[in-house]
């Protein structure tokens, strides 16, 4: 497309033909307020916040949808525009539950921010807020339609990014609500609890089911031994959640959590490494079953099982492919099972007194920990799950100055992590970590990628593919893989997962191993991460994740000293009896 000239507030600007007025204004350095617009989603044009005046037009134009044409003259703060924007805001506020101090999104609310920016101090229109209607049934996500402004970002997220589509506008006129089939609870529809809707909601209509209170109570109870685990992506999101620039903050995070008064601060990266060992051996064993034993019951491609949103998705939508899913529990649940067995032994603590808390970039993890099968330690393996945002709120409440706090290290036994564990937080990371370990196990050599960086599985492409040919000379016992080309695929965002699953189901995919993360960008873009999200924000978090990987001494899961100790003292061998008891699980078909 050629460049054209448009006039924005009288100033001639050169932009590409066909871009929207919103983009053109961005180029010209003019800020246009938006609410229903989101860079990840299709254009709705329903909030009417971005109205601008176009010379010669009878009506105002919505900047987010309207393409520029040559010599178009746009006014962005004429009297008409200003009146329109203020009126739109007043209309939204008139029917909005503006009990801001009680809202999770207070001071991080796009409606509040725009009201402040447009100096809305009084409202001539009668206010008749919708009645509060909090749904508390679902373990991961809560809804309060009294705060909803009907921008439909959640609806578009659920449908376009996730191919789940369980929420839709229902009813008409002022009685429209965003609802589910027959107005059921999110628990009773195929919602994956991924929380992608939550991080795109401009207000507080969607938020996580908070577990801050029971966690404080556990910390304050002297009879409880509170163990925290922190997921890889939390360390690249926490600073942001506390209002600081996007950066990794592992040491500060550990110090701040310790500052809350918890007994042990440990790392989910440790069990990410453990997942790699178990899952890597599972893959090799499946390949052997298929290639050597010609066992037709072996399901390939094997698929990762770390992402609980993905697991719930496949249980609902592709139950016939459940045998393909790795039996490995997610790192969170492996950690939980070990905390109340292995760690209890090491620390000489009654497992009944352990309160196991995980900090996750995820709302689906709150659902996962409630699964009835997640009690292999004899107790509930994980008691509470906090999102990155909830941890930030606790740090704020405790008055901890995150910027000034001295960095500290994780506690021992389950606190060592490797770069391979860290990159679990980014799409392609589990695949890369698995390849780093599996290749070395079967060939005896490091994976032949510069700096161990398996670039083909990195990046924001929705579906990534790679093929790695094994050397001719293999380690003893793995000769059957000599010269075999291992085909892998990686998808993030459930809409991309669906594309891949349709191919697998149709028999059109010849992959051996597939990594799926429910959330765009992987866990760093998870539903429990700081709000807002955008491709740029996820890109920055990704860079932080890979920087953390590169900075760590150990980059391969099997090199983790504490993992080696765990096997030596407790598990004995990968896929062994103890592993099967504690670290592996099964799945169920859901309607």
């Amino acid at each position, binding site marked *: 497309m050629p460049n054209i000239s448009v006039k924005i507030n009288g100033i001639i600007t050169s932009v590409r033909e066909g871009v929207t007025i919103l983009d053109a204004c961005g180029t010209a350095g003019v800020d246009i307020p938006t609410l229903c617009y989101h860079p990840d989603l299709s*254009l*709705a*044009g329903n909030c*009417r916040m971005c109205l601008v005046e176009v010379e010669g037009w009878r009506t105002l134009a919505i900047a987010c*949808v309207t393409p520029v044409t040559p010599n178009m003259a746009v006014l962005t703060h004429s009297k008409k525009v200003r009146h329109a924007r203020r*009126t739109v805001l007043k209309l939204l506020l008139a029917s909005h539950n503006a009990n801001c101090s009680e809202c999770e999104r207070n001071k991080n609310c796009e409606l509040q921010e725009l009201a402040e920016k447009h100096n809305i101090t009084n409202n001539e229109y*009668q206010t008749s807020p919708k009645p509060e209607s909090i749904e508390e049934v679902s373990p991961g996500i809560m809804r309060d339609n009294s705060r909803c402004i009907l921008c439909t970002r959640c609806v578009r997220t659920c449908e376009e990014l996730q191919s789940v589509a369980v929420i839709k*506008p229902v009813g008409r006129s002022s009685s*429209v609500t965003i609802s589910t089939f027959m107005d059921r609870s999110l628990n009773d529809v195929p919602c994956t609890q991924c929380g992608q809707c939550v991080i795109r909601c401009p207000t507080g209509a969607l938020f996580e089911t908070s577990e801050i209170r029971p966690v404080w109570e556990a910390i304050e109870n002297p009879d409880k031994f509170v163990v925290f685990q922190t997921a890889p992506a939390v360390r690249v999101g926490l600073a942001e959640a506390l209002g600081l620039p996007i950066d990794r903050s592992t040491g500060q995070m550990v110090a701040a959590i310790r500052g809350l008064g918890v007994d042990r601060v440990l790392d989910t990266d440790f069990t990410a490494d453990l997942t790699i060992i178990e899952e890597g051996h599972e893959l090799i064993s499946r390949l052997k079953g298929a290639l050597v034993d010609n066992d037709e019951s072996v399901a390939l491609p094997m698929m990762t099982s770390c992402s609980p949103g993905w697991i719930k998705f496949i249980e609902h939508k592709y139950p016939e492919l459940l045998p393909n899913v790795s039996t490995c529990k997610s790192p969170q649940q492996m950690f939980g099972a070990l905390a109340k067995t292995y760690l209890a032994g090491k620390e000489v603590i009654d497992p009944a007194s352990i309160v196991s808390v995980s900090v996750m970039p995820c709302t689906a993890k709150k659902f996962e920990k409630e699964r009835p099968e997640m009690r292999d330690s004899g107790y509930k393996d994980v008691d509470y799950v906090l999102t990155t945002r909830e941890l930030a709120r606790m740090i704020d409440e405790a008055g901890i100055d995150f910027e000034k706090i001295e960095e500290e290290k994780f506690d021992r036994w389950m606190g060592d992590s490797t770069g391979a564990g860290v990159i679990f937080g980014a799409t392609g990371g589990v695949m890369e970590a698995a390849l780093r370990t599996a290749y070395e196990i079967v060939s005896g050599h490091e994976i032949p990628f510069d700096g161990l960086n398996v670039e083909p599985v990195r990046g924001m492409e929705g579906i990534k593919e790679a093929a790695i040919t094994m050397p001719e000379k293999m380690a003893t016992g793995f000769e059957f893989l000599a010269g075999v080309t291992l085909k892998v695929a990686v998808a993030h965002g459930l809409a991309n997962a669906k594309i891949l699953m349709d191919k697998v189901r149709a028999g059109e995919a010849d992959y051996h191993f597939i990594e799926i993360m429910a959330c765009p960008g992987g866990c760093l873009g998870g539903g429990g991460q700081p709000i807002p999200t955008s491709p740029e924000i996820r890109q920055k978090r990704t860079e932080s994740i890979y920087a953390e990987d590169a900075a760590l001494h150990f980059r391969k899961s099997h090199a983790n000293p504490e993992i080696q100790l765990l096997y030596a003292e407790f598990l004995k061998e990968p896929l062994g009896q103890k592993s099967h008891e504690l670290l592996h699980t099964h799945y169920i078909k859901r309607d």
Partner: protein
Amino acid sequence: MSEKKILIAAEQPIAGSALKKSLGMTSADVVFEVRESEIRGRGGAGFPTGIKWNLAGAASGSNKMVICNADEGEPGTFKDRYLIENYSLKLLEGMTIAGYAIGSSHGIIYLRAEYPYLIPVIEKAREDLIRENLLGENILGKDFNFDIEIRPGAGAYVCGEETSLIESLEGKRGVPRNKPPYPVNSGYLFRPTVVNNVETFAAVPHIILNGAEWFQDLGIGDCTGTKLFSISGDIENPGVYEMPMGSSIGELLEAAGAQDVQAVQVGGASGATITADELDRSLSFSDLPPGGSVIVFNSSRDMIDVLENFIEFFVHESCGQCTTCREGNVRLQDAVRLIRNGEISSMEELEPFFQLAEVMKIGSKCGLGQTSPNCFIDIVTKFIDLPAGKGGV
């Protein structure tokens, strides 16, 4: 004025004669004739039909569509019902000519939910035309196929708006789309689509048979053709009337036998409310948009009741998608309540509501929200007696 009647004339053209003539012309010539006639959409918005057909014909894309908007939902309109009941052959013929003109073989009639009894009427006309080889495969032996199906609506007023109608046809919620793209480029199932009103299609055979110039001469001034009006309310002879486009309201009322006129609602609830002093205003796109509905209120009517009724209608019928329409109509309803209860006692206090009405007109997504405040502005300024207020207005 009976000589000016074409749609409700005693003599009807022989079914198929206009189609026969069209098929003897190039499709471009058919579009040209319609364009030259300067006929504008009879649904109310008044977009030039020939230009619409030309755009759809020129649009790239296969499986082009011809859709008849028979979702006659504007309060007080019943002219399309009358046309379908009595002249459905003309409608189907007009659609078929449109199909030939733009290169489409598929027509759909989106029929108002409340008109199910018209389905057998249309079906019979369709069967008759198929029997005569005027519809279906190889029409009149030519390499031209065209068939028409009927799809009943589900009762939403907003589905009279063409993009909502298309969404509804696709099985989705009936809510307006953003434009561009326009239906002529990307309409039903992303196909180039022409959507026209029943009356527009019904006029086409006459234009083809008698020529563009003849049609132009039927109107007054720059308004071409005749127009059907459904008149109801406080008059002697309610019904459907055909008048030259550009006729005055007074002429129409005289024909329908209006005695005592306090107000006339022209163009339905979303149209204009005029006083007895404005009866010389013309029914034309340059003055009072002649959608088809004319409702007369005599001096016994309390206009605040009328206003309340209209606003209630819009509050009920807004699709709820865009902020200005969904929330705006509710706030206008508040204003009416406040006036009625005496809580607003001056025009000055109404200022925020007039401002709201203006924003709705220029800021709403579709015609519904853009026109729903008309009745508020007109009735409050012309019929409600409120002092200006301290500072004046």
